[in-house]
């Protein structure tokens, strides 16, 4: 067993939600705290898995760097809730 035994409490759920950039309401925090404890306990069985040599058949797939047709700027912006002067418009960064 590792020294990072999972502790699932509402604070931890809020912390992970913050990392994932998803706000949760209080009810969701309560439900997730309960469910995550069960699910993470179930994932604990992975501790029994032996180490296996991974023999990946991976190969780089290369192609020439050539200009090809792509979406126009207008098409790329079609689904943006807001745009301005050909750019996506988002909220302030700071």
């Amino acid at each position, binding site marked *: 067993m590792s020294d990072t035994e999972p502790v699932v409490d509402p604070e931890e759920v809020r912390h992970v*939600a913050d990392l994932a950039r998803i706000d949760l309401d209080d009810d969701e925090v309560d439900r997730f705290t309960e469910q995550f404890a069960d699910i993470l306990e179930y994932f604990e069985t992975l501790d029994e898995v032996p180490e296996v040599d991974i023999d990946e058949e991976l190969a780089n797939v290369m192609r020439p760097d050539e200009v090809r047709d792509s979406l126009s700027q207008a098409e790329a912006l079609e689904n943006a809730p807001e745009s301005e002067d050909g750019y996506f418009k988002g909220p302030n960064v700071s």
Partner: protein
Amino acid sequence: MSTEYNGYITTERIDGADDGPLAGRTVAVKDNISTEGVRTTCGSAMLDDYVPPYDATVVERITAAGGTIPGKTNMDEFGMGTTTETSAFGSTENPVAEGHVPGGSSGGSAAVVTAGDADMALGTDTGGSVRAPAAFCGVVGIKPTYGLVSRYGVVAYGNSLEQVGPIAPTVKEAAELLEVIAGPDPSDATTRDAREARSASDSRAGDARETSEERSEDAYDYAAAADGDIDGLDIGIPMELLDGADERVTEVFWDAIDDLEARGATYHDVDLECLRYAVEAYYVTAMSEASSNLARFDGVRYGQSGGYDGNWNETFARAREEGFGEEVKSRVLLGTYALSAGYQDKYYKKAQDARAWIKRDINDALEGADVLASPTMPVPPMELGESLEDPLTMYLADANTTPANLANLPAISVPAGETDGGLPVGLQFMGPAFGERAIIRAGSALA
């Protein structure tokens, strides 16, 4: 066209070419596969009004082959579910088992095929999402070998696991649709040429197979393999996939195996201890990949923005609270947790060890058998509403389907019969990499 069982999210028609192998036939498309000019929601409020500016490669291939797309089918939100109940557009009812789920996540696709509202359909399968609904709706579904079918234009959930696959009333029709969508695509670097892949694996096995019917140049002739000829077929049965299964399901399964035996097949038990860890390995891997893949939904380039002002991160978090349903939030959070500092070795790395183990041992088992057989689902279709409150129970229903995704192998679900209560039961065959012909031939003996 509308369906009272809620199979379609959108019923805008996309006409295919006049001629081709699919001319005159309709192919419904799961709503996480991009269709130019026709909204593609992924079953999520986040993408309620998202209209892709381009077609997925599989959509281009279907319309070029003469297929007409009658609409976009209902699904669990972003593919995250086994029952089609996590859709933001309401659940789909199983057309052949009133009051029950159609399976998921491609539940709409299987439902419209079994109801006769489309001749065939496309689903996507990350951990069983084509095979589960095929089994629950009494139709055929194929999860191709990873890399056989292009994922270009498919909205990613767990991209190291998922493939687009056909759903149809018979194995032959599913094979015909697979012939149309299979093949390398320059826009998806994970696709491979099945001919090259087959001849590479044959030469590794020291088996030239020159005179055999499995010559590599026939690698894409799927419909021709649906000849029902299983004389001499050697079936391996991993007992781990029967141990936890419902008796109503195993009864139907063994009856089907008896039937295959009577027609010239033989079977033997295989022991695959690694399969006991498939569900955990699958969920840790898929959730981790999902936490990264779904980071793109920020309400700026596409998706629901909520219209908030202020700090970028806070705005982003509020838009995602509104746009995502509970199961999606849960999986993104658990994936974020599994990849976070201190837990990555414990969860993500161990899941990759389990995946390598599963891959190795299934491939070894397939050296001693033509195909591996099991029930597709360990349970008959659940009642609507039964599984939503307890996600862990729903995850366990994926025990028999997730191994093929983890091992990158092809698998087919074919109708095996019904329980005494009239609920459909599916039988799954898993085969060697790019050995779709083997599972199609085996499956065609049943449907």
